[in-house]
């Protein structure tokens, strides 16, 4: 064993056994410091012969580099250990709750309106709106419901108060979204495709009725739109809305003053253990009223009935929301009970679209 080997063994061992950075620094000074053992040996090189210098010099250089690398490695190791030791003392209870964050919700009526909009937008229907206080002309007359028609009485209408001396017929809180048909036709003419969702009002309050609820009106007018097109549109809507592979609709003759022919529309369904399933079973559930727009209604909207024809339909938004999402009680929609809002509400970012599907 040469002297250098001895030297190497001594310092490698000293480095390994240095307990902390201070001890390690002492080892460094003893070996590589100005007066360190290896530094002194390096200085002795000058007194050697060139041959000797060449071999000893190279060996010394290697030794110095090795010791230096070893010192650095040990230093890093000591630092890592010290950091780990510190982090251990910084322990926190990670089972504590995260910082509180409020979770908001979207009301089911708003959500279903957004679903309706997404579906009908794809079929080219725009969204029309109209005032909720309506003149009786828009709410009734224009829709072929003359003043003494029994159908007018069946609407359970809310009337606005009339000031003394104002002899106009009282305005009404719109009893349906159908007056928007007239306003949309007057504004836009034909051809036209619109839906009109919104609040409507009827004087009725019991287990299944509230004096305010929501409807969506549909209107499509063109030169050759038929009731068969209506059926297809409603089939497509129901399939997409209820998110089922297929639906079956049944048209039943009925009467609405503003359509002719008129049909009530039933959807095939089953009730098993209180659970509604759309698209299968032996039951039929009435979901909407529809028909071909009455020529007088077209005329009231400023559209020539000899040139244009089309369909209209009206559907309860709250009702289809109840059917789709299994919400039992209509009255709770308008009570703003936080428990209800949180249970039946939707997340802010659950924006219905056809690409991602309507519901999550």
């Amino acid at each position, binding site marked *: 064993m040469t002297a250098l080997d001895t030297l190497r063994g001594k310092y490698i061992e000293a480095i390994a056994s240095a307990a902390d950075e201070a001890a390690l620094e002492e080892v460094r000074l003893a070996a590589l410091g100005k007066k360190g053992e290896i530094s002194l040996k390096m200085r002795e090189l000058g007194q050697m012969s060139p041959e000797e210098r060449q071999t000893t010099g190279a060996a010394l250089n290697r030794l110095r580099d090795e010791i230096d690398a070893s010192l650095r490695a040990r230093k890093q190791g000591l630092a890592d250990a010290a950091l780990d030791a510190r982090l251990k003392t910084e322990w926190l209870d990670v089972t504590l709750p995260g910082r509180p964050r409020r979770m908001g919700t979207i009301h089911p009526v708003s959500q279903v309106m957004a679903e309706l909009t997404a579906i009908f937008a794809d079929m080219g229907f725009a969204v029309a709106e109209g005032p909720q206080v309506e003149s009786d002309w828009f709410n009734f007359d224009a829709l072929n419901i003359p003043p003494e028609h029994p159908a007018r009485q069946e609407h359970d209408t809310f009337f606005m108060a009339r000031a003394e001396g104002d002899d106009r017929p009282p305005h009404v809180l719109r009893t349906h979204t159908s007056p928007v048909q007239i306003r949309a036709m007057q504004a836009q003419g034909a051809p036209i495709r619109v839906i009109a969702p919104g609040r409507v009002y009827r004087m009725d309050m019991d287990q299944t009725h509230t*004096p305010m609820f929501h409807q969506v009106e549909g209107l499509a007018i063109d030169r050759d739109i038929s009731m*068969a097109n209506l059926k297809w549109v409603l089939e497509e809507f129901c399939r997409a809305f209820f998110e089922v592979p297929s639906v079956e609709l049944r048209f039943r003759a*009925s009467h609405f003053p503003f359509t002719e*022919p008129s049909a009530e529309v039933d959807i095939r369904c089953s009730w098993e253990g209180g659970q509604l399933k759309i698209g299968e079973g032996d039951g039929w559930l009435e979901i909407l009223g529809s028909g071909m727009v009455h020529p007088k209604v077209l005329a009231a909207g400023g559209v020539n009935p000899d040139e244009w024809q089309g369909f209209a339909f009206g559907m309860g938004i709250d009702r289809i929301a109840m059917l789709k999402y299994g919400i039992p009680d209509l009255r709770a929609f308008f009570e703003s009970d936080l428990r209800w809002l949180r249970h039946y509400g939707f997340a802010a970012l659950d924006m219905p679209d056809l690409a991602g599907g309507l519901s999550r």
Partner: protein
Amino acid sequence: MKFTLSWLKDHLETEAPLDEIVTALTDLGHEVEGVEDPAKVLGAFRTCRVIEAQPHPNADRLRLCRVETWPDGPDGPSEEVQVVCGAPNARTGLVGVFAPVGTHVPGTGVDLKPGVIRGVESNGMLCSERELMLSDDHDGIIDLPPDAPLGVRFIDYKGVNDPVIEVKITPNRPDGLGVRGLARDLAARGLGTFRPLPIEPVPGRFPSSVSVTIAPELKGKGCPIFAGRTIRGVKNGPSPDWLQARLRAVGLRPISALVDITNYFTIGLNRPLHVFDVARIKGGLRIHAAEGGEELLALDGKSYTVRAGQMLISDEEQPESLAGIMGGELSGCTEETTEVFLESAYWDPITIAATGRALKIVSDARYRFERGVDPAFTLPGLELATRMILDLCGGEASEVVMDGAVPDTSRAYRFDPKRVVSLVGMDIPAAEQRATLEALGFTFDGEMAAPPSWRPDVQGEADLVEEIARVASLTKLKGKPLPRAQAGVPKPILTTLQVREQTARRTLAALGYNECVTYSFIDEAAARLFGGGSEAVRVENPISSEMTHLRPDLLPGLLRAAARNQARGFADIALCEIGPVFAGGEPGEQQLQATGLLVGAVAPRDPFGSRRPVDVYDAKADAEAVLAAVGAPARMQISRKVPGWWHLGRSGIVGLGPNVLATFGEVHPRILREMDVKGPAVAFTVLVANVPLPKVKTPTRPALKLSDLQAVERDFAFVVDASVEALALVNAAQGADKALIESVRVFDQFAGEKAEAQMGPGKKSLALTVRLLPTDRTLNDKDIEAVSAKIVEKVSKATGATLRG
């Protein structure tokens, strides 16, 4: 509209089973709302014979009967069953009614099970009429004559097997308010043959002792035709059982033969009639408009005072009938009546509807006349009813007296078989279409189709199409794709305001608010608190005292909701609503609001001390978030001229000039008290429609300018009067060098007692940080000093601020 199957079969010859008839009615547009089928409820109860009745071995009052039953009817084999029976009349040889095990007994609500009574098996039941709910008779079990047929259904034996059908008749189909009209529809559908109704006029034996005159003001208007005749020598007792049974089945109380006959015509033929007791009227009958104020005791026992213009039938002395709506009590028929005047008239539907509504009388006659009975059937109906009175009550009829004439309802529309395809999309052969219309009573003259007199609803070509499609059945309609109006990817369809409404809603939910939908009407007191409650927004006929006025603001509804939730134990509440509010009662005087309400604390108690009461700056931050989301500009003015329901010192208005975009702040404590809300409560309202539209609509963003030069931040602490607003300092600082100053932000406020102790009474300190972004060269100390000095100068000049030492 209720009727029985046998009644229908008087007009329709059919073998169709009940289910098929029910389905067809609904499909034809007469929605069946209920069917009471005795066979479904009582079909299992059959006649039986007690072979032997012996005392029960273990009970004195019970009997042990061996009963011969016919489970499959009289033609099937008989079967002996042992029954324990407690009826005193259970005896050997009795012919009674047996219910086998498994039967539901309607009178007791019990499903029969095999049983053991006092140690003896009993398998079924011998029944009383009350157990079948056929009568109240419960003296013993049913005891039939010994020769009664055995094994037959008791309902067939008793003649009570007549299903009752209830249909909803739409207001356009008055003909459906008569059984015959429904029979005609079913016959057109092919469910049987429509039976003819031969009219044989009854010859008059003598002149009528009662004359009729329609006053000139009603002739050809309110009362086009009024006809009648007297019948003398009638005997008015109870009507025959079959007639009573039918009336009872449809929910009418049998009264007397004469009255029952008029009801029978009302339901059967949609021909309301009236009978006057001739002995109780003086002179002739006059049909006239009321002068107003006349009183009449009607058949419902109530007294009505009529208004001018309403139609009356009066004799020489007084009104005797509310024309077309309800007869008078004083001239009504009784058991003693021997001579009657039978009325058959046609009344104008609109006049009847108006009068009926004004008097609030609901009667079968009004219901039919206001929808429109068949005017052409006025006289045939009179003849048929005369015949029935003579048949059931005897007597002889006078000649017919009449004033006015049957109104001319004749009209015709072009029948174009192609319209069914183009309007409905059903391909039905022309001959079949024509046959359908003919079956419904339409007549043809070339290509013109004339509707029958009983169909006032048919008013155009589209109605012809409807009739054909309805009878052919819309269930056969097949959907046909509606092509896109334009090929390709659909264009966006929402308006800017509609998009903003959605954005505001989703933003509020993202900020943690639970969206509510509250009623558009509120109570007057709450409306007044929020600047509403005027006469213009009052609902004339509110459904409750809580819903009398259209809401002027969304806050009252949300505050009430918060109070309800507080009562349920929720302390921290974040509610919002996006909906219309009403400034007035004219169409269009409504505006879209987006309102958020925070009550309680911002967070629940937690280990980090997150909980603190909500304050005005929470509301402001959320209002600004909504404004930003709907596209409001970054810089707006804040003013303090808030409406009275806000805390005067802690609320503000965000605006652009006079244009108000939002209001935020603490809700006035008095309002909270009035609405029972425990504070603190802060809120904001954003008027999304008031946010100006972008001047240029392009998806392209302005170019991004990035500077490689170092930005510099400098802090300034100013001392100002406590009433000086921070925004004044910020705006002044911002104006010091618009090119160089990128942003100014308030980062500290030192106010209150301690601050005043340091800086003097009425003073506070506000600290700003100003970020300088050089454009062409790095700033040196001199540049920074220069701009700093300018900032201090500007702020001091604008606000009287001094730099804090």
